[in-house]
């Protein structure tokens, strides 16, 4: 009702206008931020920031005027979405590899390097053209070299990357997935990422993001996820932008002293205020392992507790609400302190875990081994394994073997798209049923190609990277997951939509591989051309000789003295010698 009256008011006051200059009242948007701190069993700390902007607008509706009034939603991303008709966009930059066995499952997984996957709207006619331009524009926005994404490392997975937001997309022609394992993340990427936040890095949780501390860690991952979602209260589609930053500090394992942390020690800053534009700003600390306070001591204490089921486990959190002034106490500064008292016990083993490595010796052939562990004691479940291998490692699919518990385990679905040299990479997707409490090994042989000398990187003996495999699965959950979506749910538990109560969605990324290829000698182009042409010329010369030589009978030539004498005689005009 309020919306409508504003509309009418503006209309009356502005008189006649053409629809281009008339801007409606700003759409509803809201911003939430949260920080989750989870002490890990290895003694390290996992900090996960999530910033969510929800905006009730539609970038993709045709016939409507272009959205031009941006408030909380960053304009650069909004323009990208409308220009390229993007339905969903997920981009992540990661430094380091997530160690599932030591740290458990992350809230939002990401592979080392850069990863970008995009669902385009079904009205797009030239998806490849849009993809190319999109990667270049994002490369500029994030100061990353995403322009190296081209058709030689882009694939269209058929089953592994279903949309996480609204959308009944089943046509994988509108999906593009690419990964750059070699990409390095640094301050240059963090700064534009921070600029996308409504408060920037000046207020709220983002003040903690100091690059010299953030990059001095075992694992650092920053991501942007944009998707359309359905808001229960508005019955309309709204756009959700989530910016997440996951970091694992290793102060303990890198030997920096005792097991004691504070926000100041981790981030070299404390919190002074919540972001004024945020509707909610919270800090969660995972205290599930510390019910009586015997493991660690948390200060300042807080009466607020929250329980959430995330990743198949019911966890308890201490909540600090930064929108309330009393959180900051008298000093107007909030510094969380965590002091360990005893040794932590064993961690719950993650139910799904994977490793990958290259076997073989020499520069001619090799074998890729992917090992997937199912640690559930009695339930078997299927996993979808997706492998994207560059074209210069020629896979031989007839050598593909999948064995579980040393018996052959035939995948029920195989989608294989072979590579075309210098055009597209291999794509292998398989649905494998993992028996309970077992290890499954997938092996495939490959041959290494010799490339043209211009196709090698400046450091060819470093090797070539093969992107991580992606394993997606619905893991059976020990605890019933909640399928209701409420506004008050903490952000970290609402990222992945939960469709059923008995299982949760998990995506595991394996290690990227580094393989060496045989190299030609780069100093030799001129020599090679000369030598090869010489051999061909010898052949040609011999043939020419053979074909054009004729034999004649020849008189033996007279000796030199006689010839000289004849010459003189000819001058004198005297008859010649015989």
């Amino acid at each position, binding site marked *: 009702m309020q919306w409508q009256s504003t509309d009418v008011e503006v209309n009356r006051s502005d008189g006649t206008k053409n629809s281009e200059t008339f801007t409606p009242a700003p759409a509803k948007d809201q911003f939430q931020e949260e920080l989750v701190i989870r002490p890990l069993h290895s003694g390290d700390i996992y900090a996960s920031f999530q910033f969510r902007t929800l905006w009730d607008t539609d970038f993709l509706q045709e016939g409507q005027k272009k959205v031009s009034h941006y408030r909380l939603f960053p304009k650069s991303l909004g323009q990208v979405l409308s220009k390229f008709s993007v339905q969903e966009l997920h981009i992540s930059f990661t430094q380091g590899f997530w160690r599932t066995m030591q740290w458990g499952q992350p809230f939002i997984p990401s592979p080392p390097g850069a990863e970008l996957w995009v669902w385009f709207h079904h009205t797009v006619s030239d998806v490849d053209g849009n993809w190319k331009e999109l990667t270049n524009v994002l490369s500029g926005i994030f100061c990353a070299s995403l322009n190296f994404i081209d058709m030689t490392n882009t694939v269209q997975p058929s089953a592994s990357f279903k949309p996480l937001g609204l959308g009944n997309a089943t046509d994988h022609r509108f999906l593009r997935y690419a990964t750059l394992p070699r990409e390095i993340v640094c301050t240059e990427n963090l700064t534009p990422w921070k600029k996308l936040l409504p408060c920037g890095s000046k207020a709220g949780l983002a003040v903690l993001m100091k690059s010299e501390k953030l990059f001095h860690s075992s694992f650092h991952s920053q991501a942007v996820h944009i998707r359309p979602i359905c808001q229960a209260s508005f019955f309309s589609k709204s756009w959700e932008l989530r910016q997440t930053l996951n970091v694992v500090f290793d102060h303990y394992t890198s030997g920096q002293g005792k097991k004691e942390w504070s926000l100041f020690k981790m981030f070299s800053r404390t919190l002074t205020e919540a972001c004024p534009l945020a509707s909610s700003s919270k800090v969660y600390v995972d205290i599930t392992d510390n019910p009586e306070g015997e493991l660690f001591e948390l200060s300042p204490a807080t009466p607020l507790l929250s329980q959430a089921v995330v990743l198949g486990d019911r966890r308890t959190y201490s909540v600090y609400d930064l929108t309330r002034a009393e959180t900051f106490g008298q000093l107007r500064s909030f510094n969380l302190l965590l002091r360990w008292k005893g040794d932590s016990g064993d961690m719950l083993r993650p139910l799904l875990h994977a490793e990958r490595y290259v076997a073989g010796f020499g520069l001619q052939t090799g074998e890729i081994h992917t090992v997937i562990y199912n640690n559930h004691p009695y339930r078997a479940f299927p996993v979808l394994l997706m492998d994207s291998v560059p074209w210069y490692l020629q896979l031989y699919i007839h050598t593909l073997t999948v064995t579980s518990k040393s018996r052959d385990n035939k995948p029920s679905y195989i989608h*294989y798209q072979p*590579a075309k040299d210098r055009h597209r990479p291999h794509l292998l997707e398989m649905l494998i049923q993992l028996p309970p409490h077992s290890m499954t090994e997938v092996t495939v042989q490959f041959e290494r*190609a010799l490339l043209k000398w211009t196709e090698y990187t400046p450091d060819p003996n470093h090797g070539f990277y093969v992107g991580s495999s992606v394993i997606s699965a619905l893991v059976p959950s020990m605890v019933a997951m909640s399928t209701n979506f409420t506004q008050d749910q903490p952000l970290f538990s609402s990222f992945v939509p939960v469709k059923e109560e008995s299982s949760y969605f998990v995506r595991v990324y394996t290690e990227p591989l580094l393989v060496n290829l045989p190299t030609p000698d780069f100093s030799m182009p001129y020599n090679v051309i000369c*030598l*090869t042409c010489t051999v061909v010329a010898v052949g040609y010369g011999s043939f020419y000789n053979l074909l054009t030589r004729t034999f004649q009978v020849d008189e033996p030539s007279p000796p030199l003295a006689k010839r000289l004498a004849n010459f003189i005689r000819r001058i004198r005009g005297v008859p010649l010698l015989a």
Partner: protein
Amino acid sequence: MAAPLTLLLIVAVTIRAVLFRSSLAELILERVEVVSPLNAWKRVVEGLALLDLGVSPYSGDVFHETPLMIYLFHFMVDYAEIVFMVTDGLTAVALYLSIQTYNKNVFRKQKYALESDRYPADCLELLRSPKEMFYIPLKVAMFYLLNPFTILSCVAKSTCGLNNAIIALFILCTLKGSALLSGILLALATYQSIYPLTLFAPALLFFLQRLYIPVNLRRSSFWFFTLQYAFIYVGSLVVITGLSFFLLGSWDFIPSVYGFIFSVPDLTPNIGLFWYFFAEMFEHFRLFFICVFQINVFFYTIPLSIKLKEHPVFLIFMQIAIISIFKSYPTVGDVALYMAFLPAWSHLYRFLRNIFLVSCVLLACSALFPVLWHLWIYAGSANSNFYYAITLLFNFGQVKGPILISHFT
């Protein structure tokens, strides 16, 4: 002569069977000198596996065999070893019979020339007697079957053996005088790898000679026969290509097989000259040099045909030698085919100047190929230049070899 030939076949089959069952078979299957991206057995199996998965074998860049080959191996993949042994035997028998026919022709011509006193006096020692010509066909068959190159090619199950068999059968049909079969087999050989196209000229010359039609561009009888033979050849080629289209339902195989042979995108090392040349080529000149190298194979046909029009069988030998040296993905199986012909001209051996040098070069190179490959790829102590150098030397020796013989024909 059936008994010695049978004995030879049994010995050859035994050697191959023993090697098939030994552990050397897997080693040989992967040697780059013996298999190339065009005729490797691993790729045939891969193509069949792709077909089973429901993907076209030509959608990737692994499989470069023709559709008729897929059709053949779809049924024969379990008996592959027997197929290749039988193929080798077939080639040897075809070569035996063709050289026998050739010798009969040569001897008959010699007899007529002798009777009409066409030979000068000092050439009498060059005349060949039936006695020494008796064992030549057997020697040719032996040179083919017991050649280490052929044995390696067979144990590696390289489809080069099948191509050699088709060419040998083509030679047999040509020498026996059947133009129809010869045209069909030549079309099949061209369909497999394009280069046997150059064998059209010597076959034509042989038929013209046999039918006593003078090779004169102004005579209508020449054109009449040429058109007939060309029609058989082109017609069979069209039929075979159409059959391949209907087999898989698409024309994908043309860029995958013929486009691949001509544009050389895959730079896997082999015993030829192309791979390193194009690995180190400036991008700007790539097309130019590809054209130069491909023209190089075809362009010796006309001059050689003009020069050697009295000796079409020798012309066939020269063409096969040129093809196996200058083709884009040569293997030792191609070398073995033309080496088999050498005993046919054994009467010329005492006039060859550098036969010892050339044979030493070829032997040394054959021994050094695996050594330098191991040093480059496995030990890491050599680099690609070493292998490339041996490639150069091997091809230099090959180029000099047939030229030497041709000087004296």
